[in-house]
């Protein structure tokens, strides 16, 4: 019956579980391989592909290796369905590292997805691409990231920021600077979401590159409250580190409070100290905070405790560690003020970590009287999950150690709840014992009394220990407390009889220890307590507690009047019980009787001596090595005492005298009070993991050395203002924002350098005047970096002047160098056009065409028929011995149409398109004599920019099919625009409309060898321009020369070309940026901005190809 019911309930539960899972993918996990996955992957239905991929991911999740599906999966990356795409990406991330070669196949699709209009797709592509940890892909991924860093969508930019640490993890030294530069760009973003992610990237990539922060410091502070919480935590830390590195610690702050008193006797500290003590209810105590500990804390923050503690002379350096130079004052420092202002509202944040980070900043930087505002927010954090409670308590504990008065009025917050975890309880006890004051101790002790009766005995033992700590700190602890402890000892010693639980023993031991600490403060007053303890020796069974009491017998054996008289009885008892003791107690007994013997009075001496000899005899034959060793050692040491008959006999040999001295020193010394602060505390930055685990966790870095970062620009703000004025003076239009970009107008600028090449005065440089002005200089140059030398440079802007006068320019350049921003000069090359030689291709080889050689070259002239046509110059040459007759070129298809009238249907269908003939035929060459050559002009309209055009070559009444291949470079036409227009257009075409490729270039190497007299920069410019213009039909807009760089370094040289696509009249911008040394092979980055993505990409490849090709003109 029950069995039956059980089975039905089982099926019922199964059914209900099944019902719950309807419509989810959970069933895929049950048996992912129950269908054949491979055919599903090749299915033409997206849903089947989707299911197959889900099954694969389920298998991955269950630990199977399904990398054998890799090629099939990668194929699906081209899918249109975003879900399939996403699943493929997940799969790729898992296996790309394993199968790098196949993974490379997918890269093209990533590139394509990066140009997708949907930001989500772009973000996915970027995340996956950056997540594939292959060094081969890294440069591509970096290019993708740098593109996405300027994406119009916030989400994509944020993903770009997240991708940077992934690239950084690959340890690509050559890209490190590029990555850091990108971090800088993203930190400068105006969207809080991006800044948060950029802050995370900054902390993981270059936490000490403060230059990046310095540029945007004020903006970052302002944006801080809007950044999402995760970013806030990191950004707060970064800003704090920056301020410390830039300005040092604050003189008024807690960290440096002692130096204030040391340096100029009278100081704020007196007042502040009063302020702090006023918080406390009693106000009578002078120890508002522990000066030594605070200085220790601050030094630990700066140097890291491990380094600091390893130096032995830590106490000497207290006052000399910080120079006044390395500190700053809040009254005069704007940066510190802003930081404190922007972090203080974050103390109200909903996120505990943010509160803790903000509190850390206030703790380190805020002036003393403001530090107390962190108290309440921190205490409020205690009402959260037990894990965060623990973390917060760890940090509060440090604050309370340094400045107990901060938390003293709030002791009630640390009262223990029954639901607290043991660790939390232990920390709360420690807090209570730290912050107890004379006014609060009564209520705290009452609480402690309750805790002692708690069922958790470990906690009760800790409570007893905490009572001891309180007693140590406060002189006026009530004697009732001591009585209570004694009662506890008595009670525990009874309970210990029945219950051998460890907890009870712990409580007893702690009680004895606490009593001991209390007695230590004033042993004479507590003589009776000692006697009570000694009496209870018989009932106490716990070895550790007994050992402590026996130790006390030894230490206080000559105290007062009663104890010395008890000594013989006690030692007799100890000797009697020696055999049955635990070894730690035995050791204490040996020590104690030695001490007793030394301080013994004459009357008891003989008696005691006999007891000692007896105990030593027992000890020599003990089972434990330690005890036998200790016994022999003591026996030897005390041999003189044992041999003598009087307690204080001086008539012994000198050697024995020494032994007596040793004995005196070892056993007769009085207790030295240990300083209450344990100097071996380790302090780490508040909120760090290291503070919780109390050792430097991986990745922990102390605060930077104060003032270690010297900001190179004198004053950024005034500098910017100056620039603005200068720019306004020059042309009234405000385009230049040197470093700050504070107005945020050019956030998506496509320039990767620091933006200084946005010319503020480009309009004065005429673009196309060289044609009508024959006297115009070959190259015009103008400085764009606004400086005092501006006028001078502009006054002689002819390049030849500049070139001839090298020394004087090098005089000027230091200023540009000092300002730490590369300046650019703009030049325009005038007469290159005359030297451009279009490249010719062969149409018919003389071998094939029975002696007829036909070459063709694209012309830069614009067709007069229609804008779609390209002018092609065809060169016919007869290399045979006989004349060739009736040479003509005709369109293959138009002939067909003319021949067969049936095909009109097709013709009509695209009649409108066909209105324009594909080929404007050339004049027929009636006769071509041997070795004669003739040029003819044809105009061609290509159907597609990649597909060749089929033509028919007629000669000698023969028909030869030929293919006229389009040259992408001539499917565009020059489009004259000024540099401003160029930049404006470029900024309208960011993100997916921008693609770049890298290639090498070495034409100039040959050039510079031949033309030594010429300037290297100029020759590079010329050779690049020639190469570009010989291969494509473009308009050279401008050339930027790097002025500040060394003369050998061509990095930063930038050429801009503009054009329009013939067929669609869409503008297409090309920027070529040069990197490398003048005399070596240069690395070019060719960047195209164009709305027509496919055409642009193809042209990009074409340019990259011909730049690499050996130049025909050079040979």
């Amino acid at each position, binding site marked *: 019956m029950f069995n039956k019911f059980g089975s039905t309930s089982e099926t019922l539960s199964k059914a209900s579980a099944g019902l719950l899972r309807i419509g989810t993918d959970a069933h895929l996990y049950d048996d992912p391989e129950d269908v054949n996955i491979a055919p599903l992957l090749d299915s033409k239905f997206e849903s089947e592909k989707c299911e197959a991929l889900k099954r694969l991911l389920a298998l991955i999740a269950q630990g199977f290796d399904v990398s054998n599906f890799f090629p099939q999966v990668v194929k699906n990356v081209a899918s249109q369905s975003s879900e399939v795409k996403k699943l493929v990406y997940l799969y790729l991330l898992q296996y790309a590292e394993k199968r790098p070669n196949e993974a490379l196949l997918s890269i093209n699709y990533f590139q394509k997805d990066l140009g997708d209009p949907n930001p989500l797709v772009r973000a996915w592509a970027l995340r996956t691409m950056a997540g594939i940890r292959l060094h081969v892909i890294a440069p591509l991924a970096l290019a993708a990231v740098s593109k996405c860093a300027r994406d119009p969508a916030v989400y994509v930019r944020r993903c770009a920021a997240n991708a940077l640490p992934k690239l950084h993890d690959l340890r690509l030294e050559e890209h490190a600077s590029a990555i850091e530069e990108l971090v800088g760009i993203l930190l400068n973003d105006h969207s809080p979401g991006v800044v948060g992610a950029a802050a995370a990237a900054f902390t993981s990539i270059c936490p000490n590159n403060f230059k990046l922060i310095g540029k945007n410091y004020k903006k970052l502070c302002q944006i801080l409250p809007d950044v999402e919480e995760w970013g806030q935590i990191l950004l707060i830390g970064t800003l704090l580190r920056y301020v410390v590195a830039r300005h040092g610690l604050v003189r008024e702050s807690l960290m440096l409070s002692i130096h204030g008193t040391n340096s100029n006797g009278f100081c704020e500290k007196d007042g502040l100290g009063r302020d702090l003590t006023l918080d406390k209810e009693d106000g009578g105590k002078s120890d508002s905070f522990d000066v030594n500990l605070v200085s220790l804390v601050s030094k630990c923050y700066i140097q890291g405790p491990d380094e600091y503690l390893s130096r032995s002379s830590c106490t000497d350096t207290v006052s000399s560690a910080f120079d006044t130079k390395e500190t700053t004052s809040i009254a005069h420092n704007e940066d510190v003020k802003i930081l404190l202002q922007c972090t203080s509202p974050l103390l109200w944040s909903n996120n505990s970590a943010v509160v803790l980070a903000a509190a850390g900043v206030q703790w380190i930087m805020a002036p003393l009287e403001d530090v107390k505002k962190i108290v*309440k927010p921190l*205490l409020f954090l205690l009402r959260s999950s037990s894990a965060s409670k623990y973390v917060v308590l760890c940090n509060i504990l440090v604050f309370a150690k340094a400045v107990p008065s901060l938390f003293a009025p709030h002791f009630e917050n640390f*009262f223990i709840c029954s639901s607290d975890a043991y660790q939390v309880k232990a920390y709360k006890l420690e807090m209570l014992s730290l912050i107890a004051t004379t006014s609060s101790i009564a209520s705290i002790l009452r609480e402690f009394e309750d805790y002692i009766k708690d069922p958790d005995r470990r906690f009760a033992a800790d409570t007893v220990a905490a009572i001891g700590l309180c007693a140590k700190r406060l002189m006026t602890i009530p004697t009732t407390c001591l009585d209570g402890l004694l009662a506890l000892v008595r009670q525990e010693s009874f309970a210990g009889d029945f219950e051998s639980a460890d907890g009870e023993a712990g409580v007893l031991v702690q009680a004895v220890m606490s009593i001991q600490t209390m007695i230590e403060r004033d042993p004479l007053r507590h003589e009776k307590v000692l006697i009570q303890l000694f009496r209870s020796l018989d009932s106490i069974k716990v070895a550790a507690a007994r050992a402590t009491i026996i130790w006390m017998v030894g230490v206080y054996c000559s105290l007062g009047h009663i104890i010395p008289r008890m000594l013989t009885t006690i030692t007799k008892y100890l000797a009697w019980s020696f055999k049955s003791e635990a070894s730690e107690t035995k050791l204490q007994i040996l020590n104690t009787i030695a001490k007793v013997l030394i301080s013994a009075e004459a009357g008891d001496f003989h008696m005691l001596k006999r007891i000692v000899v007896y105990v030593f005899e027992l000890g020599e034959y003990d089972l434990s090595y330690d005890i036998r060793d200790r016994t022999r050692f003591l026996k030897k040491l005390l041999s003189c005492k044992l041999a003598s008959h009087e307690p204080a006999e001086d008539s012994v040999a000198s050697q024995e005298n020494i032994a007596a001295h040793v004995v005196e020193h070892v056993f007769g010394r009085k207790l030295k009070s240990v300083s209450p602060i344990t100097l071996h505390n380790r302090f780490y930055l508040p909120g760090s993991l290291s503070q919780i685990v109390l050792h430097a966790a991986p990745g922990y870095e102390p605060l930077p050395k104060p003032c270690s970062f010297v900001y190179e620009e004198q004053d950024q703000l005034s500098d910017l203002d100056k620039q603005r004025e200068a720019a306004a003076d020059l042309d009234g239009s405000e385009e230049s924002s040197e470093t700050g970009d504070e107005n945020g107008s050019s956030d998506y600028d496509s320039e990767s350098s620091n933006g200084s090449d946005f010319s503020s005065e480009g309009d004065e440089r005429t673009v196309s005047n060289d044609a009508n002005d024959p006297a115009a200089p070959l190259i015009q140059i103008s400085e764009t970096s606004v400086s005092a030398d501006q006028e001078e440079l502009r006054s002689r802007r002819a390049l030849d002047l500049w070139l001839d006068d090298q020394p004087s320019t090098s005089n000027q350049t230091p200023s540009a160098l000092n300002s730490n921003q590369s300046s650019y000069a703009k030049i325009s090359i005038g007469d290159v056009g005359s030297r451009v030689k279009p490249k010719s291709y062969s149409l018919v080889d003389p071998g094939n065409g029975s002696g007829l050689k036909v070459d063709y070259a694209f012309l830069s002239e614009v067709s007069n028929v229609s804008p779609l046509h390209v002018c092609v110059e065809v060169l016919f040459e007869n290399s045979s011995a006989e004349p060739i007759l009736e040479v003509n070129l005709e369109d293959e298809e138009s002939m067909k149409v003319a021949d067969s009238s049936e095909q009109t249907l097709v013709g009509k269908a695209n009649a409108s398109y066909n209105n324009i003939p594909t080929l404007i035929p050339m004049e027929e060459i009636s006769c071509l004599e041997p070795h004669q050559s003739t040029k003819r002009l044809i105009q061609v309209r290509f159907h597609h920019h990649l597909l060749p055009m089929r033509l028919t070559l007629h000669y000698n009444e023969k028909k030869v099919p030929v293919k006229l291949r389009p040259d992408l470079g001539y499917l565009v036409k020059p489009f004259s625009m000024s540099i401003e227009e160029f930049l404006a257009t470029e900024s309208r075409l960011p993100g997916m409309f921008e693609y770049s490729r890298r290639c090498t270039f070495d034409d100039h190497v040959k050039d510079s060898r031949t033309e030594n007299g010429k300037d290297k920069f100029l020759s590079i410019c010329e050779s690049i321009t020639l190469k570009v213009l010989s291969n494509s039909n473009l308009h050279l807009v401008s050339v930027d020369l790097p002025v500040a760089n060394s003369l050998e370094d061509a990095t930063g040289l930038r050429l801009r070309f503009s054009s329009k696509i013939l067929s669609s009249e869409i503008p297409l911008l090309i920027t070529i940026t040069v990197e490398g040394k003048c005399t070596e092979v240069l690395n070019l980055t060719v960047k195209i901005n164009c709305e027509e993505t496919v055409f642009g990409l193809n042209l990009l490849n074409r340019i990259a190809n011909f730049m690499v090709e050996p130049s025909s003109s050079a040979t």
Partner: protein
Amino acid sequence: MIDNGFPLTTEPSILKEMIAPPNLVSKMLSVVTGNASNVSDTLPSGAGSCVPWRPTDPKYSSNEVYVDLVEEMDAIVNRDGELVKCEIYGEVQMNSQLTGFPDLTLSFANPSILEDMRFHPCVRYRPWESHQVLSFVPPDGEFKLMSYRVKKLKNTPVYVKPQITSDSGTCRISVLVGIRSDPGKTIESITLSFQLPHCVSSADLSSNHGTVTILSNKTCTWTIGRIPKDKTPCLSGTLALEPGLERLHVFPTFKLGFKIMGIALSGLRIEKLDLQTIPPRLYKGFRAQTRAGEFDVRL
């Protein structure tokens, strides 16, 4: 959503838009059509905006805002029956279903009683700093606007009086629970739970009202519910100690639970809730409730 170990977004509204939470309709749809994805193809509108917690343009036919004050009372009563600590931890929970981009201001009648507070990121800090007014653009749906703490309360609504005497291996225990100060509303679902000490070998407990259960891990729960008018609920019984133990030397702590609907014991009052632009058919609702948080009564 986490990317490379760093949270990419944790904003619930964005996450919900990215991957729709499963509901009956989507499940049915996926069963019927075979495959309907919960994964959105478009970027959530909030992801790029300056208020990421709010989807850009939610539309509702009726505009509703509900404000709940949910308070928890934390208290410690020590062995002498003294109230050592009594404070309120409260949350302002909201449920906003408002069209468009509303800008709300919420003000309290007595903000000075608030000891500490923490705010949802949507709350602007400046207005609070200057005149203690909450000004914010709310997220859509339910959220926690702020949490606060009110300290140093003088009284608890319920008292617990435990007594224990132990003699020669057995203990007699009796616990009385009653209303100390009537809050004006009924106190519901009162429970008292405690852990019997390890040294107790068996327990025999009974009550004159409600039910008592003792679990195998020695957790004892007394469910009282509402306190009857005619009598005071009382739990009494005997505990047998482990053999050899004369008397109990460790004592349990009682944890009290209760719930009072319709009142905020801290005394915090909402003055008004203003909308900058008042949408048509606006409904505003306010509620309050108090329950026991960490309410310890030591024996």
